[in-house]
């Protein structure tokens, strides 16, 4: 393919005196399963919000599949799917109603929306709860219905913010299966996480973020380098390697209560 799915140049965002994103440059290849990793507070959510047009950057430019997010929203919004973290859904709709609503808002024909919704609900194990209000869904079910809404219009690039956070292993496996099938067809997935094992097993391309900057980016093997695991490489990259918290808690476990 060769073309990049996402191209970010000099991206900045400050909230008051706190700098959330401090000059991010990033080029993500199309057709890959890409992991954006970093500790809590690294700026992953802020970066993804700015890339998807949900947050206006202070400075910098974002292009998705060759179109500027802020100057050409018509081209971009039709081509991307988003699952944000920390934002609500229309929770007083049932799962099926939510899919019907978001599909039709995107201008898809009603019959097509209903057909795709039925298949997505089936694949994501939500068919049994499709008529329950989303407000009564568990965390895992919310992530799955959010993913279904993001996939409904068959986007070229999918942005997922912490899609596995608080999700039970069964739902996680289901989400994983759907995403793997989706990327196998040539689409791009960008997802953020702080669970390294997950990123290591899923992704073929990684960007490591810490304190609002990109610390490393490239194919998984390249970022991991000589380290035994991505976890180890990551800890070294963010400067947290070798810290041992055990010696002060010598009373913990066994012995005198």
């Amino acid at each position: 393919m060769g073309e990049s799915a996402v191209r970010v140049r000099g991206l900045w965002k400050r909230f008051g005196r706190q700098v959330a994103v401090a000059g991010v440059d990033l080029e993500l290849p199309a057709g890959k399963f890409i992991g954006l990793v970093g500790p809590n507070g690294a700026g992953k959510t802020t970066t993804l919000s700015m890339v998807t047009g949900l947050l206006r950057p202070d400075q910098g430019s974002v292009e998705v599949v060759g179109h500027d997010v802020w100057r050409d929203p018509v081209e971009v919004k039709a081509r991307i799917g988003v699952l944000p973290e920390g934002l609500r859904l229309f929770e007083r709709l049932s799962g099926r109603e939510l899919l019907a609503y978001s599909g039709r808002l995107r201008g898809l024909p009603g019959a097509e929306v209903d057909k795709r919704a039925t298949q997505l609900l089936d694949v994501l194990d939500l068919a049994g709860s499709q008529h329950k209000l989303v407000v009564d869904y568990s965390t895992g079910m919310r992530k799955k219905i959010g993913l279904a809404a993001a996939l409904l219009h068959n986007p070229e690039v999918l942005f997922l913010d912490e899609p596995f956070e608080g999700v039970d292993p069964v739902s996680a496996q289901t989400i994983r299966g759907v995403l793997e099938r989706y990327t196998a067809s040539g689409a791009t997935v960008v997802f953020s996480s702080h669970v390294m094992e997950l990123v290591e097993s899923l992704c073929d391309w990684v960007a490591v973020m810490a304190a609002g900057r990109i610390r490393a980016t490239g194919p998984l093997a390249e970022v991991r380098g000589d380290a035994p695991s991505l976890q180890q490489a990551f800890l070294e990259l963010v400067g947290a390697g070798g810290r041992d918290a055990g010696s002060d808690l010598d009373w913990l476990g066994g012995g005198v209560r």
Partner: protein
Amino acid sequence: MTAATAPGPAAPTAASLTPVLVRLKLSLLRNGLRQSGGRTAAWIASAVVVLLFTVLQTLGLIALRGHAHADALIVLMAAVLGLGWAVMPLFFNSGDETLDPTRLVMLPLRPQPLVRALLVSSLVGIGPLFTLCLFAGSVVAVAHGAFAFVVGVIGAVLALLVCVTLARAVAAANTRLLTSRKGRDLAVLSGLVVAVGAQLVNFGAQRLGTGGLAQLEPAADVLRWVPPGTAVGAMAAASDGEYGIALAQLALTAAALVVLLWVWSRHLTRLMTSPDGSTLTADDRPARERGSAGLSRWLPAGRTGTTMERTLRYVWRDPKTKSAWVTALAIGLILPVFNAWQGTGSVYFSCFAAGMLGIQMYNQFGQDTSAFWLVAMTISSPRDAYVELRGRALALLLVTLPYATLVTVVTTAMLGDWAALPPALGLSFALLGAMLATGAWTSARFPYSIPQEGFKNVAPGQVGLAWISIVGGMAGAALLCAPVIAATIWLNVSAGGEGWRWLLLPVGAAYGAALTLLGLRMAAPRTAERLPEILAAVSKG
């Protein structure tokens, strides 16, 4: 192993548990105040108001001493108080964490000491103080003679305990409901109960003012046999020398207390020994698709119909939106119709219905909460924003147009002033159009978050924004309506104007429609270019 031979901590007895729970209640009260200065101020202000009210009410009761029908009034008051205590935990459950016994479930406590300790700790607070003062005032107002005073004091204490235990029993019996989503929805709707209750009290007071206290007697004769009214009944009977009846009513109060304590203790035991609601499977019944499937067939296709359908569903299903709508519908009807009923109204008062419902157009995106991102992701041009806003306005019109017309016709029929119907309708439509226009524009320009939990309708820090949006918008709407208002006045006062007053109906309707279209056209580009800013503003709740 030392741990195996060491004696385990003994289960706390009532004597040791009661002070602990009283101290817990006081700490919760204090910590609640410590959270913010504003909250402290609000709490102190409400405490002062309640105490003032208590003092005035008690003084009023004392002043009633010797009045022929004082006991009837006070029996009713005791009944209302009892009802209040029964209903309170259902609506204001979140205010008192000790009301939720499941928080103590992990502690090794026996039911009897726990009930005693919880009962004593629930006597701490403004509510019990208020109740005690009222019953003390009742004793002064009703009791005549030493025996009556003794009966009165015992009755007042019993009545207070009945009220507090009633609240606890209701809370314990409904904990499952109250800690669930449906319980929180119910709490949001409680504002309505308060508003409707205030109307009823107001109505009752007006009738009392005209008819005197004597008409309370029939109701009081029944209620003096229903606890906690029995306590007041006992005082009155003892004063009249009917000692047998007094003792029977006192015994009935005590019996009610025992039964309530038994019910409470039983529910408490069941709560403490069964799994709590969060580990049970949630309600699996499908959401009722009341009328919506049929509705979507009638709505236009595409974004317009989709947006309308979602908006109308939210009016029914979202507790905040629902209570705003029901309040608007009720006040929009009550104000013109009640005034017409009392013969003081005017047909033009029915514009209130259009005005109240027009307010629902304000802060459209705040009503979405942060779910607005779903809408924002599908708006990529001013045209999309226009269709979105128009869909919301149409959904509102679908209810408001027939409703405002109905209210105007009913008001006119009650007043018999049919000549005023066309201009009043025209003015209503013009006002509605102006409200929709300013509502759409302020929705784009001054959005703010509506917290989903609790009674607040504005997120902290956005009160100024909400004021600009609503008050500024309404002033703007009134200004926009000025030409139609001026024409109405002119046709009403000028000689020969009556013949042309019907003209105000088509003119007002056309003017309102034009204002709406203009407002939507002006709001759309602002919405489209400010999507991230709107999302940030509505995501604070």
